């Protein structure tokens, strides 16, 4: 029972980080039809920037506040000058461009900060462990478990009730129609891309005290978040949430109970879901 609770919380905290990066990925895909290979690198960049701010000013909160907007600005430039000329071309070329950006960023990070792993300490208030049912548990992970659903609810409310959210959903459904009724779709694309990047970098900054910061962290999470987005249904919000939870749980419980095949579990799940529901759990009928 004790092991079960620890597994549950570990799975939830990893799942929440996956969720943050996956919603950005799925929103960008849903609205723009672009699959962003570099999304994991933006996540990683968020973690590194947060680490850098911690070094400079010694405050995790400053890193959390200032890092993600820098990544968002970079991504806005990326969308405006590199991605925008490709919308009229085959989707493969958009994927290839973001693949190139990913190689560039991953190695760029290695060039600036070196190949070593770095440790970021959680802020004072979230440091240490807490007693839960006679078991000690890191406070920071609990913080992630609580924060994830809050962010999810905030985003859901944004998409459901605000004017901007409705415009976004309208443009995702029918770009041409949205343009006809006066939505400035190109500008909106840029905003969506920047917003998705901000979410990814926020996830990265939050992940910095949760795991070690290293040049491989982007590569690991991009594969898992691709799987999250596909099994949840591409472009689907609740899908990303469910997918991230499932993958987080597979990760934690798999490591405990099936250590030999744990690494293969996400791919097996991917195959099963695609066989039974080709458009994902929340993707509607194909």
């Amino acid at each position, binding site marked *: 029972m004790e092991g079960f609770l620890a597994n549950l919380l570990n799975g939830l905290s990893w799942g929440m980080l996956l969720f943050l990066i996956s919603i950005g990925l799925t929103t960008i*895909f849903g609205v723009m039809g672009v*699959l962003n290979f570099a999304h994991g690198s933006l996540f990683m960049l968020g973690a590194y920037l947060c680490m850098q701010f911690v070094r400079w000013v010694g405050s995790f909160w400053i890193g959390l506040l200032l890092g993600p907007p820098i990544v968002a600005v970079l991504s806005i430039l990326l969308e405006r000058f*590199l991605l925008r*000329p*490709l919308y009229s*071309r*085959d*989707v*493969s*070329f958009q*994927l*290839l*461009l973001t*693949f*190139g*950006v*990913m*190689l*560039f*960023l*991953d*190695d*760029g990070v*290695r*060039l600036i900060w070196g190949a070593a792993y770095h440790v970021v300490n959680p802020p004072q208030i979230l440091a240490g462990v807490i007693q839960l049912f006679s078991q000690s548990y890191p406070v920071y992970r609990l913080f992630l478990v609580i924060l994830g659903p809050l962010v999810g609810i905030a985003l859901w409310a944004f998409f459901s009730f605000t004017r901007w959210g409705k415009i976004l959903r309208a443009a995702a459904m029918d770009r041409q129609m949205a343009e006809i009724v006066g939505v400035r779709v190109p500008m909106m694309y840029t905003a969506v891309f920047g917003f998705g990047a901000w979410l990814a970098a926020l996830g990265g900054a939050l992940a910095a005290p949760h795991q070690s910061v290293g040049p491989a962290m982007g*590569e690991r999470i991009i*594969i898992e978040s*691709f*799987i999250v987005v*596909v099994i949840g249904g*591409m472009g689907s919000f609740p899908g990303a949430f469910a997918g991230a939870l499932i993958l987080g749980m597979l990760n934690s419980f798999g490591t405990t109970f099936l250590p*030999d*095949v744990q*690494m*293969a579990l*996400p*791919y*097996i799940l*991917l*195959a099963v879901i*695609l*066989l039974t529901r*080709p458009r994902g759990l929340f993707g509607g009928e194909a």
Partner: protein
Amino acid sequence: MNSLLRGHVLPASLILLALMAAPLFLSMYGVIVLTEILTMSLFALSFNLLFGYTGLLSFGQAGFFGAGSYFAVLTLIHGPDSLWAAMAAAFIGSAVLAVVIGWFCVRLDEIYFAILTLGFGMMLFTIAHNWRSVTGGSDGLGNFTLPELNLFGWGVNLFNPINFYFLVLLITALGALLLFRVVNSPFGLLLRGTRENSLRVSFVGANVRAVRLFAFILAGALAGLAGALFAFFNRIASPEMLHWSFSGKAVLMTILGGSGVYLGPAVGAAIFFVLEHVITAYTTNWMIFLGGILVVLVLAFPKGVLGSLLGLLTRRWKGPKP
């Protein structure tokens, strides 16, 4: 043989002759580099059957490449001590894998196909990485000796790099010929048809999934064969060969050379190696250049180096279009 093929016999023979004569002019190091380029050319050509001709961007081609290397090495360790048997095992084994994986993947296209192939490629990587008792885990399988190649009863010693070069040239040329015949056959036309408009192809009565699956199997089998050669070359089969970053190499080579020209990926493989050697002489961070080059190519030269050059030449010869 139709007229389309006839026009290609002369350039193909010239290229083949030049490659056969190359060891006369190259240093031993040059021969070794050319061997690796040829191996990777076969890998990139197999990828381009899917990408350039069928319109399917696969990010899991290294899965078959690496699986082929393991099949070949496992045959050498546990099975008959014959290179032909090892290569046959790589070809057939990868083809069988491609039947199973392709059956899932060809149901979807575009971005879904890219993610699915990425996922299945990584699944194969995980198997190679974790199934220690069979694959040797992260160390890979290196404890094998390369037997002599039985050429009509005559044993060829492959520890001589020049002999090994000719083996790789033979296999790559045969693979390239097979691919060339396929893409210029009526079936190849069907492949390009599904790339342009799969709906219309199905309207004329073709089974789009079956067409794509066949291309997937052929690409997988040839990638496996290239993987076998690569394992012989490096004397090891290791999990990195199945990793998606290795699949990315095939993608990069193809984009570099040009996906629209038959030999584009091979030219891309050569450029890739030259660039890698030149840049890594100055810095270890060569991926940053590679990423930058890919971005520039995608934006400004989507036809790749060979494609852009050929386009320039034809415009010269035929004059500007009216």
